[in-house]
């Protein structure tokens, strides 16, 4: 009887396991083999690590770090207000409102910013009509518009993750710190920050790799001059049909992303928080 049950359990496990192995592990093996071809050499890796492409790699990582930092900076006061200051009956509505964009199409959401920032867009129309600006601002298709687009897409993820951590923060700890004479800044540094750092780390792990590897947002809102890795991979695949190079670039990028994530995961407190996921 026990063996029959184990056989059933194995059957149940085989469905998701086959899918994850066939579409998760097998493609990585395929890419690895292709990255060594033709001729099983490191030539593709040498090219992927040449200064030309190294710039795109560091730029992608840099964008990932910067945008993640901005998201956290905004999410801290927002989730603090929602978890500790918002009247309880509006809390769920507030959380839903702040995280609803998670459900929406990021291509469409980024497209919406074209209308805000374009030469004839809402911001310029308002500011020029009001006489604040003599000439329309040229912010669309710059790093600024790309960064806005990124924050717009990924802020809800950070808010959701941070909220979980902020909600668990015991209000009495803050009251105790204030009772002992702490200023707002000290309360933040001594109580809020240490208690919510693991949540911030979890949020980082969730959004950072996606920002660094994003394709659509830079295409829609970024400047043609600011090249991120995903565009190079897409170009190599679609325009130059150079799978070997694309695969090598993918692997280098994967290693860079995993390595920077691993640095964060080394801290034991972050590891503890991640164990809950």
């Amino acid at each position, binding site marked *: 009887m026990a063996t029959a049950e184990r056989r059933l359990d194995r059957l149940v496990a085989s469905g998701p396991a086959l*899918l994850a192995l066939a579409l998760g592990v097998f493609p*990585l093996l395929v890419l690895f083999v*292709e990255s060594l071809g033709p001729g099983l050499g490191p030539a593709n890796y040498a090219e992927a690590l040449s200064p030309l492409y190294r710039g795109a790699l560091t730029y992608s990582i840099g964008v990932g770090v910067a945008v993640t930092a901005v998201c956290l900076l905004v999410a801290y006061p927002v989730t603090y*207000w929602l978890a500790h200051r918002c009247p309880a009956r509006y809390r769920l509505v507030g959380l839903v409102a702040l995280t609803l964009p998670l459900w929406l*199409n990021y291509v469409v959401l980024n497209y919406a910013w074209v209308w805000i920032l374009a030469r004839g867009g809402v911001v310029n129309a308002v500011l020029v009509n009001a006489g604040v600006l003599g000439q329309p601002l040229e912010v669309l298709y710059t790093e600024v518009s790309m960064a806005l687009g990124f924050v717009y897409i990924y802020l809800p993820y950070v808010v959701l993750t941070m909220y979980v951590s902020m909600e668990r923060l015991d209000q009495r700890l803050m009251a105790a710190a*204030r009772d002992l004479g702490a200023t707002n800044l000290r309360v933040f540094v001594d109580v809020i920050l240490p208690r919510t750092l693991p949540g911030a780390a979890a949020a980082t792990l969730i959004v950072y790799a996606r920002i660094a590897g994003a394709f659509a947002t830079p295409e829609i809102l970024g400047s043609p001059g600011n090249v991120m890795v995903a565009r190079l*991979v897409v170009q190599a695949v679609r325009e130059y049909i150079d799978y070997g190079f694309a695969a090598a670039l993918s692997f280098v990028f994967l290693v860079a992303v995993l390595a920077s994530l691993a640095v964060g995961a080394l801290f034991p407190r972050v590891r503890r928080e991640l164990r809950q996921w």
Partner: protein
Amino acid sequence: MVTSLAQLSERGAGRFPGVVVALTLAFLYGPVLVVGYLSLSPTAQPTIPLDALSVRWYGEIAQSTRFVRALVNSLVIGVAAAVGGTGLGLAGAYTITRSRLSATVRRGLALVIALPLFVPTVVVAFGIGRASAIAGLGFGYLPVILGHLFWVLPFTTFLLAARYAELDDALSAAAADLGANRQTVFRTVTLPLLRPALTASALFAFALSFNEFLITFFLAGSAVTTVPLEIFGKVRIGATAFLNAASVVVLLISAVAAGAASALRKPV
């Protein structure tokens, strides 16, 4: 009412966080409202402010066979990903939390299921595209649906695993004590108790699939098009009122799924 300094500090960081929340909400919903407003333009190229309001572009959408076909494709793929992804997610959640397989096997499964969360999507998409070509599947519906199943699997699995872990083991023991075998326990106790989570998981999987762009971009080929692909292609050509109306339709469909899911959250 005069607020003393002491009272202010008692209340915490003053008005600052509340102001940030208001700005954040404006930041999140402003662009959406602008696109909704500009979809009502009477001309193909909206000028701000609009001279008049018109719904003609929504009519144009319904007339556009290309857009309608993309919409149907997106819905079909979304439903397949919702049903299949939730079914596989349930199997994954059961294996991770309840199965009698060894702990190593269960942890290993959780790890490979979580892969698309940690591997950059462009690498996942490119890899599946190459693997599909090598396996002889090429491009089209089947690779897209498989890719979407893989993409939604970590979300459905971990959502259901969280609920599965909350289920009281004693409920199954009570059912067994009252004469139920394993299958009956699953049908009469486990499944009904998981039902809200299953619905939420299916809705979220649908939204993820309906909005997915990059994996579809690598797997669809020229024969299949979905709404995100269609919009991305048009955005590069230029912003138009037609595109605005199409965007509103897409946002509304996923907002309905989101609304249904958040309505589910209340009773539990």
